């Protein structure tokens, strides 16, 4: 009876329960090493693990012993020896009770264990992700990093919570059952093994055939989801170019192909059940026929036949299961490998002990060379001095290295050679926390968090008062806009839809203002803001940034015109520098840029 119970339970698609048997199996690269590391996560849980093994042991003994009792009961009935029956039944009830309590403890303990381990693993992983160097995140697909944090950890969690105790109990059950069968009747036990051979062969054959179709289906599903994502995401362009029909037709083609592959895959997958049923029943008949033969000749009793029927099933199931679990463990270990790969990634170098507490904000770049990729140098011998309290601007074509300067100053990346000094101290010697706490940055791609406006603005300085916050919002010209939102400062920002790009930039600027930095960096921070609003923000900035240093990067010359010092960059080098008047007078590259904006106008 046991097998039906188990099958029915495995149909619950619980988070933390095993998936379908035909999921693809992945092979890990360095399985053993990873497995050992994975095991280390359990080192602290030794007591729970030992207890779990003990419970599993008891449950297995109970479930191996129960059919034996049932066979005794049937024997008593066949022999019409009703006197012995009540005692047997009582023992049966007791054994079942032990089994149930054991199962309860087993699933409870493994749930607690798995969740504890997974919680720690997620925390470790996140701890690494948050401390990864920016270069790693820039150079790896975000989707991939995300999938390691979600799918892979989830996979490990499932395996840990289910497979380990199942594997243990499976192996024990097989050993126990075989021992019991051999003890009861060796010849019949050997005959029963033929079913096992059949099971293994059939599983191997079917799953081999299935794998091809499942793989194909998986690939098509990926393609289909990709199409949906791209076309729904880009639906404005689809509409603007009237491509609905063509897009739909190509979607239909992929969808039809997917359906064909899916039907084949599922039919094969669905045959597994009935085929196993046949094999089970063949085993059933073998036992009945040979058992009957032995019984007629008085070698064994009727009860033993009934016990064998249960045992044969009990014995076939874990073998099928162990094969599955083996695949799952392989997949999980492959996932763990990817997770550990991130955990092993070098963390951001945050060494340095100096603080920027009394810093005035003098910035010096001395002979800085830098390349993101070897051989493609982005900055060449870059020298720049920014005086305290100055507003300095970087201009230049896309790819001239402006943003790189910011990346280096913030230590998102480290220089290849040369040095960057703040108040004469190399930034490598300054505590990274202190450096960044005193430097606020606003980027072109505005990042806001799915939180209230208030929490977003106070992100840089949690202890700011509401008055200070509103003041910062007024300075960046978004106070009125915020008040117009549904819940004012308590409006929850969700997704991209609710605010325009320009409005998001204003919020990011307010956030930077509120942080009261010693150095403020605006990297194309107002590119989507109209110039009059921008002007007002800049006027407000003058007051805020008094005696503080600001660094501004922009395409729009209007954004930078008032800077104390303008640096014109081209292919990683400074080609001109000076204030607006000087640069115009020099009639160089800046003048040329300025004139493109001015061309044809009389001033």
């Amino acid at each position, binding site marked *: 009876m046991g097998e039906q119970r188990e099958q029915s339970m495995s149909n619950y698609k619980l*988070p933390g329960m095993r998936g379908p048997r035909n999921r693809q199996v992945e092979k890990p690269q360095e399985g053993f090493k990873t497995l050992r590391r994975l095991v280390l996560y359990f080192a602290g849980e030794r007591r729970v693990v030992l207890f779990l093994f003990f419970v599993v042991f008891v449950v297995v003994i109970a479930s191996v012993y129960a059919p034996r009792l049932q066979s005794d009961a*049937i024997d008593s009935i066949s022999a019409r020896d009703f006197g012995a029956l009540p005692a047997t039944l009582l023992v049966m009830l007791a054994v079942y009770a032990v089994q149930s309590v054991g199962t309860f403890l087993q699933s409870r303990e493994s749930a607690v264990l798995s969740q504890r381990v997974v919680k720690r693993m*997620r925390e470790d992983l996140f701890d690494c992700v948050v401390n990864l160097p920016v270069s790693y995140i820039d150079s790896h697909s*975000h989707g991939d990093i995300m999938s390691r944090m979600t799918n892979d950890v989830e996979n490990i969690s499932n395996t840990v919570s289910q497979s380990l105790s199942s594997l243990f109990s499976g192996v024990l059950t097989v050993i126990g059952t075989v021992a019991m069968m051999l003890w009861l009747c060796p010849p019949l036990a050997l005959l029963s093994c033929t079913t096992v051979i059949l099971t293994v062969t059939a599983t191997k054959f079917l799953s081999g055939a299935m794998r091809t179709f499942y793989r194909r289906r998986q690939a098509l599903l990926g393609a289909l989801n990709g199409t949906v994502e791209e076309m729904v995401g880009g639906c404005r362009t689809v*509409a603007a170019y009237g491509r609905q029909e063509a897009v739909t037709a190509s979607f239909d083609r992929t969808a039809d192909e997917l359906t064909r592959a899916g*039907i084949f895959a*599922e039919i094969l997958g*669905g045959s597994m059940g009935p085929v196993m049923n046949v094999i089970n*029943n063949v085993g059933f008949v073998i036992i009945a026929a040979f058992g009957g033969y032995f019984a*007629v000749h008085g070698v064994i009793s009727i009860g033993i036949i009934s016990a064998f029927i249960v045992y044969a099933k009990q014995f076939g199931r874990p073998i099928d299961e162990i094969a599955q679990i083996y695949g799952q463990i392989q997949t999980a270990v492959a996932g763990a490998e990817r997770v550990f790969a991130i955990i092993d990634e070098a963390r951001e170098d945050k060494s340095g002990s100096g603080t920027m507490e009394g810093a005035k904000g003098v910035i010096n770049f001395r002979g800085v060379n830098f390349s993101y990729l070897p051989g493609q140098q982005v900055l060449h011998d870059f020298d720049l001095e920014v005086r305290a309290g100055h507003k300095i601007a970087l201009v230049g074509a896309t790819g001239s290295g402006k943003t790189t300067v910011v990346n280096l100053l913030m230590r998102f990346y480290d220089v290849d050679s040369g040095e960057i000094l703040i108040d004469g101290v190399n930034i490598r010697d300054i505590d990274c926390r202190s450096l960044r706490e005193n430097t606020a940055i606003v980027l072109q791609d505005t990042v806001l968090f799915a939180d209230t406006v208030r929490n977003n603005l106070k992100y840089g300085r949690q202890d700011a008062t509401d008055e200070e916050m509103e003041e910062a919002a007024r300075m960046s010209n978004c106070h009125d806009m915020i008040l117009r939102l549904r819940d004012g400062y308590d409006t929850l920002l969700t997704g991209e839809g609710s605010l325009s790009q320009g409005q998001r930039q204003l919020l990011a600027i307010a956030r930077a203002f509120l942080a009261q930095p010693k150095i403020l960096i605006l990297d194309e921070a107002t590119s989507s803001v109209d110039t009059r609003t921008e002007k007002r923000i800049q006027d407000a900035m003058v007051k805020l940034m008094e005696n503080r240093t600001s660094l501004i990067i922009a395409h729009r010359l209007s954004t930078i015109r008032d800077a104390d010092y303008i640096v014109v960059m081209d292919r990683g080098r400074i080609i001109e520098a000076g204030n607006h008047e000087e640069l115009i007078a020099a009639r160089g590259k800046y003048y040329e840029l300025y004139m493109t904006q001015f061309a044809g106008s009389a001033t």
Partner: protein
Amino acid sequence: MRTRSIFSTSISEEENSQKARVQETMIKYLRKYWLFFILAPLFMLGEVSMDLLQPRLMGRIVDEGVLGLSNGGVGDIALVMSTGVRMIGLVLFGCLCGILSGVFANLCSQNFGNDVRKAAFRRVMAFSFEQTDRFSTGSLITRVTNDITQIQNLVSQCIRGFVRTFLLFAGGIVCMLSLHLSFGVVVACAMPLIVLCVLFFIGRANPLFAVLQEKLDRLNNVMQENVSGTRVVKAYVKEAYEQERFGAANDGLVETQLRVLLLFSYMTPIMNIILNVSVVAVIKVGALQVGAGNVTPGDVMAAVTYISQILNAVMRVNMIFQMVSRGVASGRRVQEVLDCEPAIRDGAFDGDTPVRGKVEFRDVSFAYPGMGGERVLSHLNLTIHPGETFGILGATGCGKSTLVNLIPRFYDATQGQVLVDDVDVRDYTLPALRGRIAVALQKSEVFGTTIRENIAWGDPEASEEQIRRAADAAQATEFIDAKADGLDERVAQGGHSLSGGQKQRVAIARAVLKNAEILIFDDTTSALDLKTEAKLYEALKREYADMTKIIIAQRIASVKDADRIAVIDNGRLAACGSHEELMAGSEIYRDIYDSQLKR
């Protein structure tokens, strides 16, 4: 486009009517596969019957073959063998039925799912921007992919799993009672207990699943924000804060997941104990009846198998319930998509017009739906003449983009009229209208294919020369040629392999290539440096002189050379004229000018 009149019923008593409509849709799409829908359960009946016959035959083997009850206690090996062979025959037949049932169930459910998926995608593609905004693209993607898979699974489960469960349940009871009615007592006692148990766990577990999903979303959200916003997190030194935030989300998830798992750790043993006690009871009852001579030991063995089959079927109700509730929830979400009639209805006009390239706004007002009626544009009048280069300036959020979005009917004016070539835009068929217009959007959407195909997106037939010419005009040739594969360089999905300026130039080339009579740039040059931008406009003027060009920009330099410039302020036309006229007559324009160009 197919239209579905059954969906247009008015929305009252929301829940019920929607449920009814989900059913209607299911029936509508399943009707095509009715034969498979009927055959699958029929074959399932075959498989289940074979399953139910097995214990009986087994009982016969025991009673007659082994114990030889009717033969005075002498076993009959021949009978054992012949019954055995019969059993194998029956089981093979059952296997065949099972496989065929699977074939038909899959033919039905997967084709059904495919049809719904295609219909939903077609519908989404026909949505107006406002409808897309309302659903949000993320949610539309889930609906078309995941939710449809859920209802497809529901259908397949309905015609196989549920049928199997029900047949095993009903068949098991019949078979058991036919052995002897007294076994019914055990069923009658165990059943209410199991049912109560199942109901209890359904009541407890299902709300937990919703919470679980929510916690999982929250955790994923924190991670997503930290990966894509890593610079901001680092710049504000918030690693510790983010760890705390993640920790809280993680704790929440782990706690909920643990609650679910613990709930199930109670459930399995309780169900098992009921089942096992029933087995003991059957043996006890059997013993009494064997003693009374009413049943045979073989019958008792068969009864033990039947009772576990019956109770297992009841236990599966929990799974069925979950499956159904998940399927119905998904069905509802898909239904919302199918229910949503494309807001923009085609007109009939697709003929020629004497004028080509003219745009006129007559007393146009616009308010985004669901924004409390606050007007983005109010009573705006404006005419743009054929061949004109027309600039539009204005503050962030003043309604510039909205204005041009009305021309290709991405949105419809709330009030007033928009005319293209003297015909109301609502009178055109959409392809005819949009064929006259090329738009490069503010957010440059680039697709995961080659640069060539991206540029030729509006016109797959375009020649190499046309593509080159468009790329030249868009100032994209230089960066394209610098790529290893030139025009055939593949762009990563989402355009991540291109910089902002490069994406914009691809989008501009795409719009230019369309060679439409009206070309609209919706702030499409913001990421270009000034020189490149100037070259672009020069090239457009030279190469595509006849086009009406409507250019939204932030920089005055972008539009200064336009024939006329409109200044939009708070949804109204504040001024309109040439640069010189505006310099002389418009204070706002001068103000903008000063903010950008004053020395």
